[in-house]
């Protein structure tokens, strides 16, 4: 099988919607009465105009669009190719056109112009448990949902036991789904989807539900999906998942492709382009900054070894946490330190400024202290920083705000990270890359 072959080619795809027109309100009684009698005609025109696009002429190949202003271009000249076996992540802000793209590709909605060619059977998973009916039993819903997703009855017959087994709800398989908990419904829905065997799988943010254990199970299943030479299109807000599952990513912004390339670089570019940055906090107004009578905090930022402030960091690279503070009163013994917490709120560690040059009493002035956390130390996930400063003799707390900054540690599937050749999930609060040694003895036969 030729893996270089394109299984999806998208050329100049456009999709526009017309948003509802503004309602006009008449403030005179006579006018309102007239409007009431005219309303069927105006309503008819209004609803009709929702799908009439005669006034719009998209210039193919360019981004300039002529047309009225109540038209939204959900997709604007999108072109890309996907090769067989590729796992493509689609990222972007809300309303960037990600879901519209998936809907167009899975034939749910038609493009306004442009075209996409898809080679092979495509299945789309825009939701877990599509078509589940609460009155039907788990067993019945497996068949219903399976056929909705494009499976044949015979196919489901063959996989039925596996599906039930994967979902872990075998005890309730003959109970109406309305008596299920949300988690059970999601499990059942995902289990059906997990046993789909399309050439191309289109997935939209469906893993954001369910308990974390089951999520992990699904991730493993999905990873194995990608490795069977199946092509996957994956929309997600979870950057961690995108970098981990996808080899390539495209970034959509207002219906256009902004970036296309290796998943980790696209994700990194996306995260750094955001206006709101949570990995940097600066107090411009000194009166509002946290602090006591000896010292006050001015800024905290998280940066890489090149000094760039980033939102997400490669798990293999060192991370510097920088704190800028002002010492107002001289000759105190100061103890700047950080407490690092993970997403679950677990206190991972505390690190104290141990710079030998500044162990003594410090003069007034501004200081910038950076703690360097080595690469291959954190586990993947979101980390939160508590930045604090104590004085010793007498012991006082000058500042200790929690969650001042946060940053994302992103896993790498490269085999030079701590995960070695293991493709699955790795638990644990930290993930150090340790030195392993082996002794070997030949069998004595």
């Amino acid at each position: 099988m030729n893996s270089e072959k394109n299984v999806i080619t998208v050329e100049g795809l456009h999709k526009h919607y017309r948003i509802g027109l503004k309602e006009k309100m008449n403030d005179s009684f006579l006018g309102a009465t007239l409007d009431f009698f005219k309303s069927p005609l105006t309503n008819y025109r209004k609803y009709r105009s929702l799908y009439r696009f005669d006034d719009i002429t998209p210039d193919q190949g360019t981004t300039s669009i002529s047309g009225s202003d109540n038209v939204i271009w959900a997709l604007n000249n999108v072109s890309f190719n996907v090769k067989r076996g590729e796992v493509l992540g689609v990222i972007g802000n809300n309303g960037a056109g990600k879901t519209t793209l998936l809907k167009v590709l899975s034939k749910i909605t038609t493009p306004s112009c442009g075209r996409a060619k898809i080679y092979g059977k495509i299945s789309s998973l825009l939701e877990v448990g599509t078509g589940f009916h609460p009155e039907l039993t788990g067993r019945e819903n497996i068949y219903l949902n399976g056929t909705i997703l494009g499976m044949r009855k015979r196919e489901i017959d063959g996989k039925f036991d596996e599906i039930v087994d994967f979902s872990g709800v075998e005890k309730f398989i003959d109970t109406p789904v309305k008596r299920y908990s949300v988690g059970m419904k999601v499990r059942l829905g995902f289990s059906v989807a997990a046993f789909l065997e399309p050439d191309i799988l289109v997935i939209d943010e469906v893993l954001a539900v369910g308990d974390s254990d089951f999520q992990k199970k699904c991730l493993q299943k999905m990873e194995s999906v990608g490795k069977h030479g199946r092509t996957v299109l994956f929309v997600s807000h979870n950057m961690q998942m995108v970098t981990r599952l996808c080899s390539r990513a495209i970034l959509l912004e207002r219906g256009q492709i902004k970036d296309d390339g290796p998943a980790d670089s696209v994700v990194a570019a996306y995260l750094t382009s955001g206006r709101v940055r949570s990995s940097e906090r600066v107090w411009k107004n000194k009166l509002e900054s946290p602090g006591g009578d000896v010292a006050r905090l001015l800024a905290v930022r998280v940066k890489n070894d090149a000094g760039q402030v980033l939102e997400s960091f490669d798990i293999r690279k060192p991370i510097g946490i920088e704190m800028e503070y002002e010492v107002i009163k001289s000759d105190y013994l100061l103890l700047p330190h950080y407490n690092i917490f993970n997403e679950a709120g677990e206190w991972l560690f505390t690190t104290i400024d141990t710079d030998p040059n500044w162990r003594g009493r410090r003069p007034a002035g501004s200081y910038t202290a950076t703690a360097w956390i080595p690469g291959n130390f954190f586990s993947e996930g979101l980390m939160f920083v508590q930045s604090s400063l104590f004085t010793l003799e007498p012991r006082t707390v000058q500042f200790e705000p929690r969650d001042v900054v946060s940053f994302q540690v992103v896993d790498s599937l490269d085999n030079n990270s701590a995960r070695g050749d293991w493709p699955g999930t790795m638990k644990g609060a930290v993930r150090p890359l340790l030195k392993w040694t082996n002794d070997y003895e030949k069998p004595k036969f």
Partner: protein
Amino acid sequence: MINYITRKLNSVKNIDKDRSEEVTIVEHRSGWQLIDFKELIKYRDLFYFLVWREIKVLYAQTILGFSWAILQPLIQIIIFTVVFGKVARLSTDGIPYFLFSSVAIIPWTYMSQAMMESSQSLVQGQHLLDKVYFPRLLFPLTPVLARLVDFGISILIILAVAIYYRVVPTWNLLLLPFFIVLMVSIPAAIGLWLSALAIRFRDVKHAMPFVVRMLIYTAPIVYSASSIPETYRFIYSLNPIVGVIEGFRSCLLGTAIPWSFIWPGILTSFFLLFVGAFYFKRMEWLFVDVI
């Protein structure tokens, strides 16, 4: 159009030799297009499960269950017998009123319910419509088939009434399957038109119950067709419901089949069905966008 291209590509392609691969082309399509029967066949398992779901769910968590399929038409028959048979004393060509209205109300109940549900099928199924692709034609056709179960059950009423009045079956009965097909084609045709319309204009939802109530008087359900003046009979029988009711009556009661009341309706119903399917296909592309 899309399938024409698909087929064409399939026939000329030699891209991938190791498996016969389907090629889908996604592009804008509006205007008139053919119905893709190949695709419909591909989705027959889904169609089966959709119909089956509809049947399963219809009387879920009810005490009477499928007895409703008998109770509803039965009560209507009794009321009509009292009001139109005993009080208004409408002419029935000498047939006992209870028997006369039974054979008409059973197919009418099916047609009116299937029509109502089919016309709302897209609006009610908008959640599915928005999340997954399968031939949109399955939406309006599902209730049309699912309601046949009710119809089958309510046939028991006709059976019981026929036995009570000692109606002897005649050779006419052999034509009944034909009238059942005609009966099914009416809600299918109406459903195709109205479901496509209802997704854009929700007025259909408010108009339907009213229209269906009116429709009962456009067909010889409570009265006899012979009371229609000769000159208007042709126009009157363009309504396909007339043909179904007259057909049922003569098949089950063994009276002469009044073809002059039946054939105009056959033409209109198949015309409506055919054009309705094309209209539906023409509008199909915008369903999701205007929900």
